[in-house]
């Protein structure tokens, strides 16, 4: 049954997107590593890392679209799952530093030596093994999402209230991780990484590999999301989004559906964070800021929620704009971002991809009655 679902999810759209991403995963690192710098197609390393970062943001946006565009849960705290995955990866990378840190302690990371700690706290055990760290990247955000979601959805907290308490959740985590005695690096975060899986984090080859990994994971999760949304489960999710009470009265266990997609989305965000950290080189508590989570939502809104392609487009476009603006006209960036929020919600409720899709289907002559498309509700 699962294979059937997965194959069904591999529809035309998914084929195109996955193929494109696989192509990017191969071509761009090759252009960086094997083309000489003078060639016009050469991709400089900084651009490679930047696009890799965009890809991880695209994965985060995809996870937000899954819960918001298809299930109607506006999460203003997905940055928390992103950051938790990032911290798990960061802890693994910190343990890989070993004696090459400033204080040259074989076991304790620098900031612990600085705080006069004598031994590793219990929650750092196991992070020297890659498989454990990767497992934690999935489990920690997933577990938090599961517990949070179980409480929230059981009590039928919906709408604006739910959004506010997701914001409270990420804010609480922000405050907690800023404390220096939590054991996660405090306000400095985790940084100064040296190795990942034995390879130097800063080497060109590793960067290329991380870029390729980001593209491939995005492709994989896109396929997974496509499979879910095109399956019967996906149809129920859309029903929950559009008419929750009615779906409940028909007999579906709405809480279970919501919890499933919420937890899955959190795990996706965790993976995105884990891919983000080695490329950016640092993870600190400001990733938990509510503003970051709200920005992730605007990427989805700009791209088009309820279409899986939209968030990828939106994340890339908005972040590209941010890079450009903050380089050229820094004071204007916040005006532009704010205006983007307003313009998109007022004039582009379907986002770029959604509007294009609507226009494309609208062009066809109305020979047969087109199937009613449910409007994305709140």
């Amino acid at each position, binding site marked *: 049954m699962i294979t059937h679902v997965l194959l069904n999810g591999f529809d035309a759209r998914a084929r195109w997107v996955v193929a494109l991403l696989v192509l990017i995963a191969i071509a761009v690192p090759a252009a960086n590593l094997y083309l000489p710098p003078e060639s016009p197609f050469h991709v400089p390393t900084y651009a490679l890392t930047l696009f890799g970062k965009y890809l991880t943001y695209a994965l985060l946006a995809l996870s937000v679209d899954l819960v918001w565009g298809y299930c109607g849960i506006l999460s203003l705290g997905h940055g928390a799952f992103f950051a938790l995955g990032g911290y798990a990866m960061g802890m693994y990378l910190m343990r890989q530093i070993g004696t090459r840190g400033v204080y040259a302690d074989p076991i304790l990371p620098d900031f612990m030596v600085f705080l006069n700690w004598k031994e590793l706290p219990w929650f750092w055990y196991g992070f020297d093994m890659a498989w454990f760290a990767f497992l934690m990247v999935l489990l920690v955000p997933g577990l938090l999402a599961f517990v949070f979601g179980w409480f929230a959805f059981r009590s039928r907290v919906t709408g604006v209230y739910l*959004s506010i308490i997701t914001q*409270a959740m990420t804010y609480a985590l922000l405050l907690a991780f800023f404390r220096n005695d939590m054991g996660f690096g405090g306000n400095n975060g985790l940084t100064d990484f040296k190795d990942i899986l034995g390879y130097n984090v800063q080497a060109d080859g590793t960067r290329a590999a991380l870029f390729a990994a980001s593209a491939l994971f995005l492709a994989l999760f896109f396929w997974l999301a496509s499979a879910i949304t095109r399956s019967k489960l996906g149809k129920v999710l859309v029903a929950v989004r559009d008419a929750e009470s009615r779906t409940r009265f028909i007999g579906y266990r709405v809480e279970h559906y919501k919890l499933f997609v919420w937890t899955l989305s959190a795990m996706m965000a965790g993976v995105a964070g884990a891919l983000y950290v080695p490329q950016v080189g640092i993870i600190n508590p400001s990733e938990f800021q509510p503003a970051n989570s709200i920005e992730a939502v605007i990427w989805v809104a700009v791209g088009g929620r309820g279409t899986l392609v939209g968030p990828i487009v939106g994340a890339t476009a908005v972040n590209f704009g941010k890079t450009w603006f903050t380089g050229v006209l820094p004071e204007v960036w916040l005006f532009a971002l704010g205006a983007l929020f307003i313009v998109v*919600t007022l004039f582009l409720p379907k986002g770029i991809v959604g509007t294009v899709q609507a226009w494309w289907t609208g062009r066809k002559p109305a020979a047969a009655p087109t199937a009613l498309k449910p409007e994305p509700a709140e």
Partner: protein
Amino acid sequence: MTKLRLLLALIALAILPVLVAPSPSRAATAIADEDLTRLVNALGSGGFSETEAAITVLAASGDDRVAGILEKLGSGDLVVRKEDKGVFLAEKAGADVKLTSLVDGKDAGVVAKGAVEKIKVNNKLRRTIASAVGSLTLRSADPAVRRAAAEAVMKSKDAAAVPALDAAIAAEQDPGVKAVMVSARASAVLASDMPEADKLAAVDTIGALGTRDALGLLSGYTGVEGPVGEAARLAAAGIENKLALWDAGQNVWYGLSLGSVLLLAAIGLAVTFGVMGVINMAHGEMVMLGAYTTFVVQEAIRTYAPGLFDVSLFIALPLAFLVAGGVGILIERTVIRWLYGRPLETLLATWGVSLILQQAVRSLFGANNREVGNPSWMSGSFMIGEIQITYARLWIIVFAALVFVALLAVLKRTAFGLEMRAVTQNRPMASAMGIRTPAVDALTFGLGSGIAGIAGVALSQIDNVSPNLGQGYIIDSFMVVVFGGVGNLWGTLVGALTLGVANKFLEPYAGAVLGKILLLVFIILFIQKRPRGLFALKGRAIEA
């Protein structure tokens, strides 16, 4: 109605302690001018030991002018005129020296620098001067000076001051000042070589005070062996117990103060959310606009009418209401009106507005903190027992209560308030009854933003005024609204006060940050039980 009256009575009671009663005064002492001149001139004769003897004699005279004379001696302002050995106060007048008589303050002429010789003082002399001035001021005419002198002796633990204090206590009429002198005497006794019985009596006296200063005094003797140390330890333990109670009271005060700040910040949000169902993410920026209005008003007053500084806040209040309310109505008409029925998108759009407002203020005023001063009636503090009450926070609590009462009056007693409540409870039916809901929406948003603006005026007094001011209050405002529910203003009041007091009580045990985290977790769990807050509106129209 009775709740309103109760509130008004409580406000009146809160203002009462501010009125202070005056205390009795006391006759001055003086000796004849010729005698004083003779004693003063003795200061200039001979070396340090002669000066010291002269100081003692001067102090013993008890004249009111002696304290001033000795202080000037200590700061090196006295000189001896070589021709008649007279001692005068010297001031530089160009290359010459202007002399003033110390006895009657009359001008004594201008002489060349070479005609006078400065009276030198060393550290030992300065100590003698300090203690002489101390015991002199114990007999000053002004009770405030006497009290300050006694408190200084209590802190300095000067054993030599005991006889001076004995004399002062015998002559003291004011019971408040007398009590301070008795405690000062006890402190001096403990530091001296007097017999044990006296010291034990002194420990008892200090222990009976029950203040933090007394605890500090006693802790110097708790390590001592013997009955004195024993008594000190017992007395210290007793004081600590009493202080624990006062500390709890102080926490309640801080909690009330924080709660009133939260109330001011959140009440506009609760009103808007109740009527329109939209969470205004730009609410914090309305508070910021109010704070910046205060800044602009104060700058204008500083430049054009400095005398009006004390009423600057009263000028800023209506202006801030209008500015923030105007911006609020503008936002409602241009952005929110088109998003009717889509609360989540309104949330996003208002977040965009907040970014724009922040950046606009940053461009206009700069990203740094701007200085907003406290008017004189908001500075300072007073003590109730061991609880310190600052005027700024006291007036903010009063102000928050007034705003709450005013808003309650608007809601319950005006036609507009009636329309607001109707739209909150059942929008379609209110519209069917002829209420113009778009107008109510716009005016409600304006009212909510205006209240946030005047909250900003109050908050500018206790917080930094910067473009990020709003961000610090937005999450807390949300928590108050979510916790208290939006059916009812009392919900906001209870929510704000509860969160404020709970936060402050958690602080000593868990630290400020962890306390806040625990509160957030508590609210998340609370929402499970009551998804619409404490005071929720019920009914099918609300569930929609």
